[in-house]
């Protein structure tokens, strides 16, 4: 049922989310629209309250500007009829907060807590200041002969659900793919797991979003999202070989 409520609220804000964020960055993964809609929902809620506050603010400044011979009112703010101007918005804000919390947690759960069944797993190894991507190869399994190891180039297939295993060799890094709306820190000594499912094709940025030293500003990679045919072609070209050996 929760999922139903979530889907309903999301569907209301989806076009707006697409307008706010989708117009700047392509919507590239199965959960990107969820995040965009959440952002739109928050924007509408806080925008409403912010606007209201601004209207009240500027109205009061204008209405009660200094006029000769007119004294200010003496009110303590503890009068019932005045206090309700505070307590009603207060209650309404709590309601808004509850909705935001609910939506935020649903999105969070879907992206970070849940780990849906994967079609393939990629290993992402971050180091100062580059990305190594280990693709599972045609057999879809990591740590086999046909793994494809690339450098600063991640090849994925549209419509395939990937798990990632994120590790770091030295310091903190952050695997950030704006088109996926995905971000996860890589922590030395830990394996961070997660998932994504590309829904468009093209070549986009992978960024490192955690300060990682002098070369942090050049630590970008490209993610290449291919159609199944293109992906198969790429795999057969590089099968079993460490592509990184040639590009490195």
């Amino acid at each position, binding site marked *: 049922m929760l999922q139903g409520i979530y889907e309903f609220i999301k569907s209301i804000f989806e076009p707006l989310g697409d307008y706010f*964020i989708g117009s700047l*960055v392509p919507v590239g993964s199965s959960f990107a629209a969820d*995040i965009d809609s*959440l*952002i739109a929902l*928050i924007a509408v*809620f*806080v925008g409403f309250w*912010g606007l209201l*506050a*601004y209207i009240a*603010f500027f109205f009061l400044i204008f209405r*009660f500007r200094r006029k000769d011979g*007119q*004294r200010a*009112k*003496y*009110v*303590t*703010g503890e009068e019932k009829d005045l*206090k309700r*101007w*505070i307590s009603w918005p*207060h209650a309404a*804000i709590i309601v808004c*907060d509850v909705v*935001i919390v609910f*939506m*935020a*947690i649903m*999105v*969070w*759960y879907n*992206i*970070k807590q849940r780990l849906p069944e994967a079609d393939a797993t990629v290993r992402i190894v971050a180091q100062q200041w580059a990305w190594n991507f280990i693709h599972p190869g045609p057999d879809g399994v990591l740590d086999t002969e046909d793994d494809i190891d690339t450098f600063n180039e991640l090849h994925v297939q549209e419509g395939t659900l990937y798990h990632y295993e994120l590790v770091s060799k*030295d*310091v*903190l890094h*952050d695997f*950030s793919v*704006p088109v996926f709306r995905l*971000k*996860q*820190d890589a*922590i*030395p*000594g*830990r394996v961070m797991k997660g998932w994504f499912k590309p829904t468009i094709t093209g070549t986009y*940025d992978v*960024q490192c*979003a*955690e*300060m990682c030293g*002098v*070369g*942090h*500003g*050049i630590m*970008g990679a*490209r993610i290449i999202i291919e159609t199944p045919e293109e992906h198969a072609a790429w795999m057969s070209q590089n099968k079993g070989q460490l592509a990184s050996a040639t590009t490195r």
Partner: protein
Amino acid sequence: MDVAKQGAARVGDDPLNGIEMAEAGSVTVDTHEAHGHEAHHEQSFWSKYVFSTDHKMIAMQYMFTGIVMALIGGYMSYAFRMQLAFPGQSVPGYGVVSQGEYNALVTNHGTIMIFWVAMPMLIAAFGNFLIPLMIGADDMVFPRINRLSYQIFLISAIVLIASFFVPGGGFGGAWTAYPPLSANAQYNLTPLGATFWIVAVALEFVAFLLGGINFITTLMNSRAPGMKMYDIPMVLWMIVIASILFMASVGPLIAGAVMLFMDQVVGTGFFDPNRGGDPILWQHLFWFFGHPEVYVVLLPAMGIVADIICTFARKKLFNYKLILFTVFATGIISFFVWAHHQFVAGIDPRMANVFTVTTLIISIPIAEMLFLYIATLYGGSIQLTTPMLWALAFIAEFLIGGVTGIFLGASGADIYFHDTYFVLAHFHYTFFPIAIIGFYAGITYWFPKMFGRMMNETLGKIHFWGTIIAFNCIFIPLFILGAAGQHRRIYNFQNFPDLAGLQDMRVFATGALIVMLVFQVVFLVNFVVSLIKGKPAGKNPWNANTLEWTTDSPPPHGNWPDGLPNCYRGPYEYSVPGRKEDYWPQNVPPDTAPAE
């Protein structure tokens, strides 16, 4: 607090009992004379300006150090913004910004602006200046500890600046200093810079712990006779609550700083995963302090704004008690939200849900506080003087900072916004109102009291509009850049094909920054000119109620040479019906029945 008991006690009456007599001793009686006597002495330059124990002089020292550090921080922002707008080109007045230098600049810009500008200017400068004056005391309770606090602070500032000139250059691991990058010279390539940085920060904490103890005890113990809990001006409440928050939250980070220092210097592995340590631990230690720290700097600015709004709207603060409770609530909840800075930084995803809820909860008292401030304007007689403009601008700008925070507190949206320019623009919309607008509001309001002369209103307004408009022009584009996925601390976005096209906006923001920095010259000119030739202010130029306006401007040593004032009513009794004047100073005895 049983202040009521000693409500009517006069100065010199000893409210202490038993053993405590030993402390109060004979000093109470003759202090007046001692002060009067001293005021006539010519003090040497050193004892008057450098090694002074007078709270006003220490406040000035903090303030001017803060201004110098703000100029340094502003210069840094100029250098790295120019690099972003015109990558690789030589920046006039700096030179070519290399990658390492860029990192060091952004790191130290953040560190300086928070620890060496916001804290000394808002808490230490205004706290030192206002607390004794507003509670009707002659000084802080521990003048020498106060002096020590400033001296340690000064050393910490020098150490930080020195970190730029050691081999390897300044520390470039972001102001959050996440290990292993910050712990290991092999990774950060600034072995000495990183150590200087952590030492400077730790020293600064010690300075503010000493200062904080002083503020807290002074407000708790040394209020004028008759000043009850709800008679304390809001700004003092907020400064002291901020000090308490600081004191209660900074401990783990001091422990963390010791551990990080040991990692850097001794070679331990507290945060080194290869040797049984855990880098995530630092993040928790840091943010357990880091989030309350936001409120540590926010609250004093909120307090300054409260006092100014009341004075220039000639209104009583709207529901003083409720505001106070929202402050308490904010303070308490601020300890429960820290991990929202770490949503995607490797904490267990289940914990993120808890921290999302607490983060959204904290928005409620803050929103309520802002509503109450806006409600204070209702029925007022609003005079748009320069301090009032700054105070109102604080509310207007902080509102944006507040509402954009919701995006980041909601875990789902934070996956996308974490560490983008959206975050950056968000916290500049909070910290700029706090540190800069709050400071300008305070300084333009209390300048007459500090230096005995009025500031120039025309120059003040030019400065105000130039700063505010330019400020919005800097950061609104950055919100858009953040929404487009541009992440922080990158020295050249041309390296990222998807981001390279947004260069116009960066150039625009940089241009606005330069305009804003140039407008600060107006302030400095106004400051210096008013200092020399401003109109004499008199005791109470704004017709305000609080006790500091009842003494001379600037207050002499000992603040009230003719005897300390008593307090008879709350601080915001403006426009009381039936009185000729629309203000009613706290120290004026009631003309009819005795107060309360």
